[in-house]
């Protein structure tokens, strides 16, 4: 892999706590000395968090699609009636 990708992997191993303790120490020392690396670590952390939010959004859309399917498809009539009857005043 090219150097920049290796750095991404190192940051990932550090952030996801996949590296052995001796590597962690060395990496933390590097971070103190290298402001550029420190910035990249922060950005990468933000990236994982965005990917989580993206994943969650997609999952919610998939679940909503299932809901629509269940509540509009006549084959699930008994199920739907059972649920709706719970909310009748």
């Amino acid at each position: 892999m090219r150097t920049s990708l290796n750095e991404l992997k190192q940051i990932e191993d550090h952030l996801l706590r996949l590296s052995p303790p001796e590597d962690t120490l060395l990496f933390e020392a590097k971070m103190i000395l290298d402001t550029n690396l420190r910035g990249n670590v922060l950005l990468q952390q933000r990236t994982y968090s965005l990917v989580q939010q993206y994943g969650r959004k997609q999952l919610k859309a998939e679940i909503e699609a299932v809901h629509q399917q269940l509540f509009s498809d006549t084959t699930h009539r008994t199920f739907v009636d059972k649920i709706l009857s719970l909310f009748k005043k």
Partner: protein
Amino acid sequence: MEALMISGNTKATREALFIALYQKAFPAAAKYISKMGGSFDEAKDIFQDALVIYYEKAVNNQIAIHVNEKAYLLGITKNLWLQKYREDRSNVPFDSADIDTAVEDANEPAVEKLLYYLETAGQKCMNILKAFYYDNLPVKKLADLFGYTSIHSATVQKYKCLEKVRDTVKQKSLTYEDFLK
């Protein structure tokens, strides 16, 4: 949830799983919410959040594989309802230290903007990264799913995507100032 482990976590298996979970657990969850005075829409929202929590825990191996799904989902539903009830009653949520179960939406405008940009401009990469980091798919599955011939090329592609998105985050955070506070 075992189906995901056996036949692989794809959109189709997730759909089948959520249909099954809905049928198995939604009646009991809706009954509870209705008994507590909640509406159909509230029952729906809370149950869907419970499914998200359940899914995230399951793919990260935080749930025993033979757990009673119905009881588990009902438990999360009750917790989410009580949490919502507490928050609605007092506007000062000081006692919500156990908020880690809540499914927060990305409601910061800068994050929303960035997500929207990434969804439109870099969807393929986002889907690869999502499959790996969110759905927790092994690289072998990732390679099969996205048509890479080897684990190595799928791994390299994953890092390339990570780099691409990270660069976008960098570039956009200069524009959307409140993103990197």
